[in-house]
C-alpha cells in the first residue's frame, strides 16, 4: 500500500521558525582539513546540527498553551484525560484528576494517543471512491485504486445508495466508538429502518454478559474493587477466572489504580488468585497462580460451589430472601460429579487446591469471582459465566461494598427514538454476510476482518459485499474492501460524551472535546451521520433535527442536548467530568430484572460444563490455542504506534512482534527452542511465527497476543508479528451466538 504523503504540517511549520530551524539537516557545508587534524587525518565536517539549536537563547517557544479535558478511547474504559496543547499541537496526555472513577489515573496507552492522532499514515485527503472494477481486499493501493471525491459528492452518493435499497439490507458494523457516536449510529439505524447492527464488542463479551443476564436480568453488572481504610468494606479476595485484571480487563486504568491501593492500602492487603492457563502479568503479580485446562473454568466454579455449600459457608440471608432456584442448583452442585476430586480430573487443578480456594474465597468477604472474556469464549461460555457469577451470590457479594455492583448511567436527556435492542450476534452476522442478504454496509471505526475468527474465510465474503462504506481515520485492513472511504476524526478531534463502564457503581459522564481541529480533511462521525441523514431527508433526518441540529456544529450541539439536563455546559467543559450520586448498596428489591425479580440460580445446563474436551485429547492437534491482549495492544490505534510497539510484551521483553508462547517442557519434547520459527496449524488455517519457550504456561496450551499481523495499517504496524485469528476456529456459544475463541486445537511444529 502506498502512502498519501501528509502534506500537512504547514501551519506548524510557520510557527516552527521561532526556533530558528529551517534546518536542512544533511546540509554539508564543506570539508576542511584543519592543521591539527592533518596529523591524524581527521576530516572536520561542519555539521549544522546541535549547537545552532542548542545555543538559541533561553526564551521559551511556547506561544499558546491550553489544557483541554476530554476522554481516551484506546479501549472501552474511556477514561477522562487532559491534553496539553501547545501552539496548536497536542503534546502530552495526562489523566483528569476530577474523575474519581480512576482517580485521575490512566493506563500506558493513554499517552500513545498522541501517536493515534498524529499517525503518519492517516487519510490525508477528501473521501475516496473506488475506481470501478478494481479488486477488493489485500493489496489495495490508495493512489491507484481510489479517486478523490468531495465530501458533498461522497455523502450524496451514499445517500442515493441507501435510498435505493430496502432498509433491512443495510448492515452497520461498529468497532470501538465514542458512546455519543454509538447513540447516533443507533438513532440513524432506527430511523433508517435496519436492525442489522453489529458491535465488535460482542465478538467476545456476549457470552460473558449472557451468563450474568441469566442470573440477574441485567447487562451492567461490574466488579467493584473497593479499597478503603475502613477495612471491612475493602475487597479482600479477588478470584480471577481468565480476567487479566491489570493487563487488559476492563476498566483497566481503574483496575490498576485500585490494585495499587489494595495491595498496600489495607492492613494486610487483599488476596488475588488468578486462574489462567497462561502466567499473565496479573498472575505474576497475584498471590497465587492456578494453571487450568482451558475451557474448564465453569466446572471449577461448580466444584467450588460444591465445597462452599458442603461446608455451609453460604450467605443464607441473601440466598433465602433474594434468590430462586437455589435448591436445584444445590442438588447439581453437590452431586458427586462436581466434587473437587472429580473436577480435578478435568481441570487439572488439585482437589486440595480447589477446596482451599473455595474456603478462602468464602471466608474472606467481601470477595469477588471475576470472569474474564476469555474464560467464557466457549461453546458453553454462557453457562460457565453463569456458574462463576453464582459464586458471588453464594457468598453474598451481590450489591455489597467491594462486590458486584450495578452501574448507573448519567441521566441523559432521552433520545428522540427509543433504541433498546442490542443488535445482532456474530452468528447472525456470519449468516447475513454469507447468504448475500446484505446490499450495503457501513463500517464505523471497524476492523472486522482482523477481529473475527478464521480471518481468511471472511475474505471472500467481504469481497462480495456489494457496497461497503468505510468510516475511520486511517487505512486499515477493512478499508481495503471499501467502495467509499470517509476519512473520520480520531477521538481527540471530536465532540462527544462517554459514560463510565461497569465498575464504580456511581455514574460518571465524561466530555469529549476536540483538542485540535480535525486534521487534514477528516470529519467527525457525528457530522458524517448528520450530513447523511439530512441528505436523505425525513424520516431519517427526523431524530437529528429533533436534537436541534444545525449544519455547523452538530457534534457539539448534540452533546449539549444530551447533557445539559444534568450538568451545565460550562461546568462540563471546565471539569471534563460529571459525577453522579454515591452508589447505594443492598437494593435487592429493585436490581434484579429477571422474571422472578430475584437472583436466579439456573441449573439445567450446568452438567454440560463437564462435557469438555481437554488438551491432548486430540492427538493430532494436542495444543489448545489461547489468545490474550497485552497491555500495549492499542485497540483503536491498530498498533501503528511506535511507542506501543517498542514495549509490546513486557513479560517477555519483546517489542515489535508477537510470539507463540509454549511451555518449556512441551517445547523441548518437540525439539523447539526459544526463538525458533514454528508453524501453528489448525483445522482453519496455518500461521508461522516465532516460538517463545517459557515456564509460565500450561504444557497443553499455547498462547498468543493479538493486535499484530496487520498488513494495511501503516508503517509501524504492517508485517509485524502475525494475527492469531487466522487459525482460530468458528464455534458458537449456544446462548449468545458468540464465537468461541479459545477452543481451537492446534498442532505446532518447527518450521
Amino acid at each position, binding site marked *: 500500500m502506498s502512502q498519501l504523503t501528509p502534506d500537512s504540517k504547514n501551519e506548524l511549520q510557520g510557527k516552527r521558525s521561532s526556533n530558528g530551524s529551517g534546518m536542512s539537516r544533511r546540509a554539508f557545508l564543506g570539508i576542511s582539513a584543519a592543521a591539527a587534524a592533518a596529523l591524524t587525518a581527521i576530516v572536520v565536517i561542519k555539521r549544522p546540527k546541535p549547537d545552532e539549536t542548542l545555543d538559541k537563547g533561553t526564551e521559551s*517557544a511556547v506561544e499558546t498553551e491550553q489544557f483541554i479535558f476530554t476522554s481516551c478511547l484506546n479501549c472501552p474504559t474511556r477514561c477522562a484525560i487532559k491534553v496539553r496543547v501547545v501552539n496548536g499541537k497536542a503534546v502530552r496526555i495526562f489523566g483528569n484528576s476530577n474523575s474519581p472513577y480512576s482517580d485521575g489515573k490512566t493506563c500506558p496507552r493513554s499517552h500513545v494517543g498522541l501517536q493515534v492522532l498524529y499517525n503518519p499514515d492517516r487519510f490525508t485527503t477528501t473521501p475516496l471512491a473506488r475506481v470501478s472494477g478494481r479488486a477488493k481486499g489485500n493489496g489495495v493501493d490508495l493512489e491507484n485504486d481510489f479517486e478523490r471525491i468531495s465530501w458533498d459528492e461522497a455523502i450524496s452518493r451514499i445517500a442515493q445508495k441507501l435510498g435505493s435499497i430496502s432498509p433491512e439490507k443495510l448492515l452497520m458494523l461498529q468497532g470501538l466508538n465514542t458512546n455519543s457516536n454509538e447513540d447516533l449510529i443507533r438513532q440513524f439505524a432506527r430511523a433508517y429502518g435496519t436492525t442489522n447492527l453489529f458491535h465488535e464488542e460482542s465478538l467476545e463479551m456476549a457470552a460473558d454478559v449472557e451468563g450474568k443476564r441469566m442470573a440477574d436480568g441485567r447487562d451492567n453488572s461490574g466488579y467493584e474493587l473497593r479499597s478503603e481504610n475502613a477495612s471491612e468494606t475493602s475487597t479482600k479476595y479477588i478470584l480471577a477466572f481468565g480476567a487479566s485484571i491489570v493487563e487488559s480487563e476492563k476498566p483497566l486504568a481503574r483496575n490498576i489504580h485500585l490494585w495499587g491501593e489494595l495491595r498496600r492500602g489495607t492492613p494486610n492487603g487483599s488476596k488475588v488468585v488468578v486462574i489462567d492457563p497462561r502466567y499473565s502479568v496479573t498472575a505474576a503479580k497475584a498471590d497465587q497462580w492456578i494453571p487450568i485446562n482451558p475451557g474448564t473454568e465453569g466446572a471449577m466454579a461448580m466444584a467450588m460451589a460444591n465445597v462452599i455449600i458442603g461446608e455451609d459457608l453460604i450467605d443464607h440471608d441473601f440466598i433465602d430472601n433474594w434468590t430462586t432456584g437455589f435448591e436445584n442448583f444445590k442438588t447439581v452442585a453437590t452431586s458427586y460429579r462436581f466434587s473437587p476430586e472429580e473436577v480435578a480430573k478435568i481441570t487439572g487443578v488439585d482437589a486440595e487446591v480447589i477446596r482451599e480456594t473455595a474456603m478462602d474465597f468464602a471466608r474472606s468477604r467481601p470477595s469477588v469471582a471475576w470472569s474474564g472474556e476469555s474464560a467464557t469464549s466457549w461453546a458453553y461460555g454462557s453457562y460457565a459465566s453463569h456458574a462463576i457469577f453464582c459464586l458471588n451470590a453464594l457468598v453474598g457479594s451481590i450489591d455489597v461494598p467491594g462486590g458486584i455492583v450495578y452501574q448507573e448511567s448519567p441521566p441523559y436527556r432521552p433520545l428522540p427514538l427509543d433504541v433498546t435492542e442490542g443488535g445482532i450476534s456474530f452468528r447472525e452476522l456470519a449468516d447475513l454476510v454469507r447468504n448475500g442478504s446484505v446490499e450495503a454496509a457501513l463500517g464505523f471505526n471497524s476492523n472486522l476482518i482482523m477481529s473475527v475468527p478464521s480471518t481468511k474465510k471472511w475474505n471472500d465474503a467481504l469481497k462480495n459485499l456489494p457496497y461497503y462504506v468505510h468510516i475511520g481515520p486511517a487505512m486499515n485492513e477493512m478499508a481495503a474492501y471499501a467502495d467509499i472511504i470517509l476519512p473520520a476524526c480520531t477521538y481527540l478531534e471530536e465532540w462527544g460524551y462517554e459514560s463510565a463502564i461497569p465498575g464504580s457503581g456511581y455514574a460518571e459522564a465524561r466530555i469529549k472535546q476536540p483538542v485540535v481541529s480535525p486534521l487534514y480533511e477528516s470529519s467527525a462521525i457525528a457530522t458524517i451521520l448528520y450530513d447523511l441523514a439530512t441528505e436523505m431527508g425525513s424520516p431519517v433526518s427526523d431524530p437529528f433535527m429533533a436534537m436541534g441540529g444545525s449544519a455547523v456544529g452538530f457534534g457539539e450541539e448534540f452533546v449539549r442536548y444530551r447533557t445539559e439536563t444534568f450538568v451545565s455546559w460550562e461546568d462540563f467543559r471546565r471539569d471534563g467530568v460529571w459525577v453522579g450520586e454515591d452508589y447505594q448498596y443492598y437494593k435487592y428489591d429493585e436490581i434484579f430484572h429477571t422474571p422472578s425479580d430475584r437472583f436466579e440460580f439456573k441449573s439445567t445446563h450446568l452438567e454440560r460444563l463437564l462435557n469438555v474436551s481437554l488438551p491432548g485429547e486430540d492427538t493430532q492437534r494436542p495444543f489448545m490455542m489461547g489468545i490474550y491482549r497485552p497491555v500495549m495492544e492499542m485497540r483503536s490505534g491498530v498498533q501503528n504506534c511506535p511507542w506501543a510497539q517498542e514495549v509490546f510484551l513486557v513479560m517477555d521483553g519483546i517489542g*515489535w512482534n508477537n510470539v507463540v508462547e509454549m511451555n518449556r517442557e512441551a517445547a523441548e519434547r518437540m525439539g523447539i527452542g526459544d526463538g525458533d520459527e514454528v508453524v501453528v496449524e489448525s483445522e482453519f488455517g496455518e500461521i508461522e511465527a516465532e516460538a517463545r519457550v517459557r515456564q509460565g504456561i500450561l504444557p497443553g496450551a499455547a498462547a498468543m497476543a493479538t493486535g499484530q499481523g496487520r498488513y494495511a495499517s501503516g508503517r509501524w504496524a504492517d508485517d509485524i508479528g502475525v494475527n492469531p485469528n487466522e487459525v482460530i476456529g468458528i464455534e458458537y456459544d449456544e446462548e449468545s451466538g458468540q464465537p468461541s475463541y479459545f477452543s481451537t486445537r492446534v498442532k505446532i511444529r518447527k518450521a
Partner: protein
Amino acid sequence: MAKWGMIIDLDKCVGCQACSLACKSENNVPHGSPHEWKRHQDLYWHKVIAVTEGEYPTVNTQIIPMPCMHCEHPPCVNVCPAKATYQRGDGIVMQNFRRCIGCRYCIIACPYGSRNFNFKDQADEEYDRPDLPPDLDLSYVGHIGPWPYPRRTRGVVEKCTYCFHRIDQALEKGVDIGSPDGVVPACVEACPAEARFFGDLDDPESEVSRLLATRNSFKLREEMSTHPKTIYLPR
C-alpha cells in the same frame, strides 16, 4: 540541600509501562523501529524488565521498572572525560549534551544499562517538538516551560534526568516536591498504581524517608557499591 530519590514499590507495580511511555512523551525521547530494536540502537530513558525464576508451575516473574539509579557514587560520572556527566548538589546525575563527546565510556561503566547512545537524527517530524524550549545551560534554572529537549542531538549519550526540569521549576516557584499534590517526575505522576514515590531522602518527614523507615527495601546490584537513590520495596 535536598537529596532526591525515588522509591518503587514492586508489590503495587503491575508492569504496565506507563512510566516508560510517560518518560518518552515528557522528554521527547525518540522512538525506535523494528530494525533498531533488533540492533539495540533505540533509546530508552526508562525500561521495565521481567526476571524469571523457577519452573512450571511454581514460576515467579519479577517485573522491575528501571529509571536511572542516580547513584550516589556514579561510575558514569567518574569515567566521563569531558565532565558531560556530572552530579548536581542535589544528587541528580545529569548529562550535558553540549559537553558530551560521544565516547560512550559511560555506557560501558554504568552497571544498570541506564544510558543509551543517540544513533541518528530524529526521524519523524511529528516528534520534532518546536514547542519545547531549547536545551538550556543546565546551571540556568529560570527557564520557562518544563521541557528541555525540543530536538535531539545525535551522537551523544542520553539518560533519565529525574525530570530535573520539573524539580527546578517547582523550586523556583516554591511548589512542594514529592507530596501528593506536589511536583513529581513524569513517570511518578503517570503511574496508575501509584507504585512510585519521589522526594527528599534527607528529609526525615518526606514520604520516601517514611517508606524507607517502615518497610523493607533493596537496591539493585548493591555489590557495585554505587549506592543507588532509586530504591525498591520488595513484594
